[in-house]
């Protein structure tokens, strides 16, 4: 017996052929699909209004320059239509007790003030809402309404009301043909009983304002990579037109600064963030694709192009696309107040020169960190985490996706920064381990 989402408060589900996946990004979705395809039931809990994770925010992905939405949306669709998967979005895992074979989970289903089963995602309510607030999905560059859908392919494809911004004018209610909006909706508690748990909580980006010398937050034309993604994304705040935030001009000379919040002992992030070299190169190539005459320079420490097709992509960026690569970690960024251009000070190590290069746009590539929610989950489940806050696995070689607690598995960036292919592989790997555990009631 499986509890239906939004069911009676405290409705019980008991089933040890059920898995809980915490996190609806690409890794969590892969795990959910591969578990569900084997005939087990899956609850997929996601804290934001839609599954899709960070990948939904990206424009193109390396090394193939696949459009992220294009390869992701069929997955979103597959997950939402899968008879064995129940998506619990806009929800948080509050408490977990028990052990493998019988974990008892308390899930908080936050009130989105829209009845999921009635809303058709038509968007009429969004059109009439008079409140505009900065849009988190667009990294605060664009705007959204108080009633909103994070992105067009949001799954579930329903609206959510941000009650903190809602002025309760009721215009949305009046225009909704399905009577789907209820501003008095309350949070609900759902109690689940599952046999195994998959931690797929993803990552958060390093806050680059921790480097005041790079000018983020001070100078308008210093942005970070995720803001850049939204700017070049056709579904983003500028419809995919890459423009400077200070004057809407198209940048002609862009500088990408790597390793901001990675490989830095003094900022508490001594490890490599693994994906920034590649996404930096991808972003640089995208700049060239948008406008082949743009001068594009990447300032780096080492280029970690280690994966399948990555070195070839790096080579293509340099030769075919003409991206400049300067080895040197940028010392500081100053602004030219006349035109809001940036002046980057860096040592070009290969040529033994100190450079002061003027760019009209600077993009910082932030490193990855564990998301804050991971700490709470770790606290609930008592699995080991490493010094940086990532989940430690039981045995790196033999059980690389098993946590130190039987029946609890980890995939995606919750274990450490990783790219999409590796996140997908760990998602499938976790599904295998979870399935075995569900069958045998304990880790093997």
């Amino acid at each position, binding site marked *: 017996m499986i509890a239906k989402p939004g069911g009676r408060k405290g409705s019980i589900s008991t089933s040890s052929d059920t898995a809980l996946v915490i996190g609806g990004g690409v890794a969590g979705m892969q795990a959910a699909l591969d578990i569900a395809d*084997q005939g087990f039931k899956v609850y997929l809990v996601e804290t934001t209004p839609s599954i899709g994770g960070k990948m939904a925010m990206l424009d193109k992905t390396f090394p193939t320059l696949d459009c992220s939405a294009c390869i992701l949306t069929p997955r979103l669709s597959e997950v939402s239509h899968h008879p064995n998967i129940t998506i619990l979005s806009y929800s948080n895992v509050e408490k977990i007790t028990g052990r493998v074979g019988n974990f008892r989970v308390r899930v908080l289903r936050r009130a989105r003030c829209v009845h999921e089963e009635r809303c058709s995602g038509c968007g009429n309510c969004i059109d009439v809402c008079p409140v505009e607030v900065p849009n988190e999905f667009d990294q605060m560059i664009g705007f959204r309404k108080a009633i909103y859908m994070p992105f067009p392919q949001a799954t579930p494809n329903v609206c959510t009301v941000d009650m903190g911004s809602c002025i309760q004018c009721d215009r949305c209610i009046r225009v909704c043909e399905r009577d789907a909006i209820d501003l008095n909706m309350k949070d609900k508690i759902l109690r689940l009983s599952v046999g195994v748990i998959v931690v797929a909580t993803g990552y958060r980006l390093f806050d680059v304002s921790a480097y005041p010398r790079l000018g983020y937050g001070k100078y308008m034309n210093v942005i970070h990579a995720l803001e850049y993604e939204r700017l070049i994304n056709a579904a983003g705040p500028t419809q995919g037109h890459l423009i400077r935030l200070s004057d809407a001009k198209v940048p002609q000379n862009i500088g990408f600064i790597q390793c901001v919040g990675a490989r830095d002992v003094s900022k508490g992030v001594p490890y490599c963030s693994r994906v920034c070299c590649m996404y930096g190169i991808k972003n640089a190539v995208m700049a060239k694709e948008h406008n082949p005459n743009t001068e594009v320079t990447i300032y780096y420490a080492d280029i970690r192009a280690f994966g*399948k097709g990555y070195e070839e992509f790096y080579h293509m960026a340099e030769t075919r696309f003409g991206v400049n690569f300067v080895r040197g970690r940028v010392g500081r960024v100053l602004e030219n107040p006349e035109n809001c251009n940036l002046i980057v000070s860096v040592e070009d190590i290969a040529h*033994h020169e100190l450079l002061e290069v003027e760019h009209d746009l600077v993009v910082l590539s932030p490193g990855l960190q564990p998301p804050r929610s991971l700490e709470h989950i770790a606290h609930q489940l008592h699995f080991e985490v490493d010094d940086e806050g990532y989940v430690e696995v039981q045995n790196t070689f033999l059980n690389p*996706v098993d946590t130190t607690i039987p029946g609890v598995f980890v995939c995606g960036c919750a274990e450490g920064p990783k790219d999409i292919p590796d996140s997908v*592989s*760990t998602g499938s*790997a976790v599904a295998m381990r979870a399935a075995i555990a569900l069958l045998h009631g304990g880790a093997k």
Partner: protein
Amino acid sequence: MSQEEAPRIGVFVCHCGHNIAGVVDVEKVAKLASSLPHVVYTTHEMFMCADAGQQLIRSMVAEHALNRVVIASCSPRMHEPTFRKAVEEAGLNRYLFEQVNLREHVSWCHMREPEAATEKAIDLVRMSVARAAHLESLPIETVKVTPMALVVGAGITGLRAALDIADRGFEVLLVEKSPQLGGHVAKWTHLFPTGESGAELLAPLIRRVKSHTRIQIMRNSEVVEFEGFIGNFKATVQDRKDGVQREFDVGTAIIATGFESFKPFGYYSYGESPDIVTLAELQEMPPRPELLRPSNSQPVNTMAFIGCVGSREPSKKGHEHCSRHCCFATAKAASDLKDGLEEIVMLYKSLRTYGKHHEDIHRLAREKHVIYSRFPADEIPIVEVVDDKIRIEWTDILANKRLIFQPDMLVLASAMVAPSDTETVAKMFGLTRSSDGFFSPEHIKLAPLTTHVAGIMIAGTSQAAKNAVESSIDASGAAAKAAVLMARGEVEIESTLSEVNPELCSLCHTCITSCPYGAIGIDESRDPPVACVTKAKCHGCGTCAAACASGAIIMKHSTDNQIGAMLEAYLCPVQETM
């Protein structure tokens, strides 16, 4: 859906965000489509693949009583399954749906010519609408999946995959070429980061595999033939010693044939001194309290490593890729060995300590005063062996100086490459290879462990250069893919097959000999006998239909009428009104 009903075609043109609409005037295409014969509904939509798009298909089929659906969007490779499912949910047979590729075939390759691209898009839609009118429903067939997996290769990847599948409850046939289980890892005398030897590390895994009731191990054996289709493969395994062959029916296969360590003859005087070894050779050296020089068994006092040997060489086929595992492996080796050595110098082109704890070990090596020296990519070190002494000369970038070092031992971090028999394996299993020489996954990002051959998975270093931990992850992932198929017990197969019209067949045998899959035989039960197609083996490639001189073979879903309609629509378009 009967053929007698007049076609009622719905045309859905997708913007695909900016991808199509940025070049092609999708509105114009949709508008024009509405004037085409049999079209009763057209629209354009931002993302047809998203839930909203699929919902639209379902609603419009119902609302307009559509019995054919044409979606002008991306490549069928992307979303054909998605759209087929939507169409089926709307109550139509999936073969009454046609996908027009306006992205890979139009907007992406004619980016700078929007007008011409739009004209081409219009042509393609016109052609597909014409074909759609002739589409027929085809029955959906399923086949059973044999609940047994073939795992080729018993390195860490094969072992892990075999164990996972067996624990999951399915039978496994584990085939290993060599006499030993454990692959490369078992030969390593010390491991990173735990310090155990490879054999020690794998021992529990190997023990469990050997004792598992559901795993059948065949050592000293090779797969020599492999045929069939998803869920129903037949593998012929031959013992390398006595040549005895055995056949097995398997439902899925995981190819975990691993890698080969490149022997860098021609690089850095490799081969000219026994003291110049590869990283792999170092990792396999018998464990001793002291590291000894291979040449004279004297203790090593000074050592050098050179990275990227045979890797990252643009335009050298099979050597363009990064071998991924070496930067960390050399850092760990140097860090471990430094305690007993006076000097270790690490010459590198790029430093890729990307993974968990990699930077920690890198820092530890430096703290122990392992000297990291970066050389320019276009000016690699020169190594000479003079009077049995190794002499390395290179330019250190930071110091901007020419340096010389004469170590007792030189370790070359040579490339991880595809094994020499990869082409044979590829042909046998019908796999394709990427430019790096390893097998191609179905999709490099979202499907790294499956291949274009349904039911066959790749994992570990057979897929790409990677380290043992990553291989272990791949193994469980590929096992999951196999488990999914076997757990379901049956899968659908494509109905786009060829069929012989017995009335027209003259039994000339042309089709039988031309079929690359050996899928056509003779139906002796008829008089006169005629050719007949074994559905399960047919790949729908169309070779037989093209070869048949009598026009007796029809390709389901690619009939002469359907193709003919497309040609006619393109060459003789009816005057359209806008």
